[in-house]
């Protein structure tokens, strides 16, 4: 109890420095969404039950794939183990800085920036904002140079198109 309280105070102090918690803009419930959540395996549902943001996963990977889940109230990271590659999808509802904390030039740079699918350090990566919070996708291959999934954005874009909400607490 004491340990939890100390951790909570530390977290509040850290976040209150310049950052905080983003407010989630939950989408309206739909029958399609409800069906997807109903079909989500119970094991996965249990692991993400306390996450307070929409948990996104690619539709065709929900049931079949082996995965590892790291989840907290404001954050989750799910690693899907593919043949010869790892796919990580994460969501986060915290922020560390606001516009006033950075110089005008950087503000302009960030305002102009758009979502990109980049091939950096041998991986395919994309970061995006949805429902008022942040998400990241990262694909890392065994064969950095030979595996097209990590050198071409086609594969990650396809996964991105398949993202659906599988859980998260409102």
């Amino acid at each position, binding site marked *: 109890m004491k340990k939890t309280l100390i*951790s909570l105070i*530390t*977290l509040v102090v*850290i*976040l209150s420095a310049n*950052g905080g918690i*983003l407010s989630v803009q939950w989408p309206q419930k739909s029958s399609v969404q409800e069906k997807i959540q109903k079909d989500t395996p119970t094991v996965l549902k249990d692991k993400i039950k306390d996450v307070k943001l929409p948990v996104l996963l690619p539709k065709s990977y929900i049931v079949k794939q082996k995965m*590892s*889940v*790291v989840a*907290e109230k*404001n*954050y989750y*990271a799910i*690693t899907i183990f593919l043949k010869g*590659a*790892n796919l*990580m999808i*994460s969501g*986060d509802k*915290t*922020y*560390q*800085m*606001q*516009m006033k*904390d*950075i*110089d005008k030039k*950087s*503000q302009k*740079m*960030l*305002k*102009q*920036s758009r979502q*990109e699918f*980049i*091939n*950096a*350090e*041998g*991986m395919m990566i994309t*970061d995006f*904002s949805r429902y*008022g*919070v*942040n998400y*990241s996708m*990262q694909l*890392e*291959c*065994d*064969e*950095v*140079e030979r595996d097209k999934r990590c050198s071409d954005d086609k594969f990650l874009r396809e996964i991105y198109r398949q993202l659906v909400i599988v859980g998260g607490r409102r």
Partner: protein
Amino acid sequence: MRLYLTLILVLLLSSCAKTKDKKVKTITYQYQQHHGSIKSKRFSYTPAGVLSPPSSGQGRYGDNYIYAPHIRFPIENAPAYINSQVYGIGGMNGKAGKLCDIRNYQYPWHDNFCEERGWGMPLCPTGKGHQGVDIRTATCAKKRYYAVAVESGRISYIGKYTVSLRGNSGRKYRYLHLDSNSLQVSRGQYVRRGQRIGLVSDNMGRTKTSIHLHFDMKQTIVIDGIPKQVYVPPYSSLVDAYKRLLSGRP
């Protein structure tokens, strides 16, 4: 007439740029080490955003902001050297020689955030560049030096050659090229600041790279109400952390 004026202006500007390059100073930090007797030592570094060689890209010159205050230096022990892998001696675009050349293992440090790369990076002056910094350990020895947690938090991801740590601050740190067999952490594990993660190596899946730690930090900045997750410059935070490590207060 207008052409002459333009030419003069261009010449003046280019000479100013050259003068600016020459004026780049190395900053020296003096500290004392207590090993029986007190020894005075020095660590030197060039300012944030000054890339070496200048042709290696355009850094965020003048940005000395410490984006991640009070972090622990990501290598367990000093010395360590921040400098370019690509433009260093033996590197792909560097001077001829071996990657283990002693000149790659000495001060001053050089920032390599935003060093020329082909991928998009919103905070780099050219819109593209290296999203972190490369750090060499004390010597060129493989699998000898530990990378440690810069902040307390949870290990969010372990991949083929990447370990990600999500700090309690919400900031995300990536450690690349650690030896997979030496990892001291597992997915989801809570780690304390300074706790060992793994040994620095040349791991890049089945491909090999030079022996170094690629370290980067990603955080969320809210711009006009929209959260943007971006790689932020780690150099100044690391200089600050390294000074504390050298002074015995990591």
